[in-house]
């Protein structure tokens, strides 16, 4: 089984490629259909943010091993404008691209662990993890 995929994100078509490959990886690892849908939706939203705010970037999805269980890690990276106020971006209802996407608080609710590192003019990296129950 392939345990890592990487998809360059440059267009709306790539959003679908990324989420479909991510779903396959999650399903192959034994995630339920419901959890695989949560992972695919997470990837879709993170890829969408890349297209909307940074124009291009990439999504990496890989199998991770915890001490007692396995999971999936999604890393969405771009070299875009970055997020000036990460704390504010994590508030529900915050969006700067004309309401495209609910933003990050919604995505955080889909996964078990969520981390965002961003610096103005340096780009943004979002890491999301979902563990197998």
């Amino acid at each position: 089984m392939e345990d890592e995929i990487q998809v360059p994100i440059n267009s709306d078509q790539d959003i679908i490629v990324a989420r479909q490959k991510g779903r396959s990886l999650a399903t192959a690892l034994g995630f339920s259909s419901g959890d695989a849908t949560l992972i695919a939706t997470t990837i879709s939203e993170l890829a969408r943010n890349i297209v909307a705010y940074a124009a291009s970037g990439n999504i990496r999805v890989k199998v991770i091993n915890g001490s007692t269980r396995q999971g999936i890690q999604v890393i969405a990276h771009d070299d875009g404008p970055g997020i000036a106020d990460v704390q504010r971006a994590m508030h529900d209802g915050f969006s700067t691209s004309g309401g495209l996407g609910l933003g990050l608080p919604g995505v955080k609710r889909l996964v078990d662990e969520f981390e965002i590192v961003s610096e103005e003019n340096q780009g943004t990296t979002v890491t999301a993890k979902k563990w197998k129950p």
Partner: protein
Amino acid sequence: MDVPILKQGYFLIATVQSALTDSDLLQLRSALVQRVVRCRSRGVIVDVTSLDVMDSFASRTLRDIAQMVRLRGAKMVIVGIQPEVAFAMVQLGLKLENVTTALDLEEGLVHLNQEFSSTDKRL
């Protein structure tokens, strides 16, 4: 990928058959609104049974279509949202407010027929 739109009497039925890109969704929006006008349709059903992900853009575009259709005096029903998709939508905070939904195509047609039979004897 184009979404086929079937005309059935006063109703239109659009059946999504595979994952839709953002451009596909926008294409569906303009095609449906145009057909509603051209066919003088009273109701529209969008069948999303085969959609495995409904993200913020898809949800917002469907809500927009429903509102445009409503402004034309017609009614739209979304049918076939999968249970896993519904779960993910709620977690994400997507509510599809003010959009009518039904279990499947059959229920959607029943709903539209009820909606219009009381007000329009031609149907």
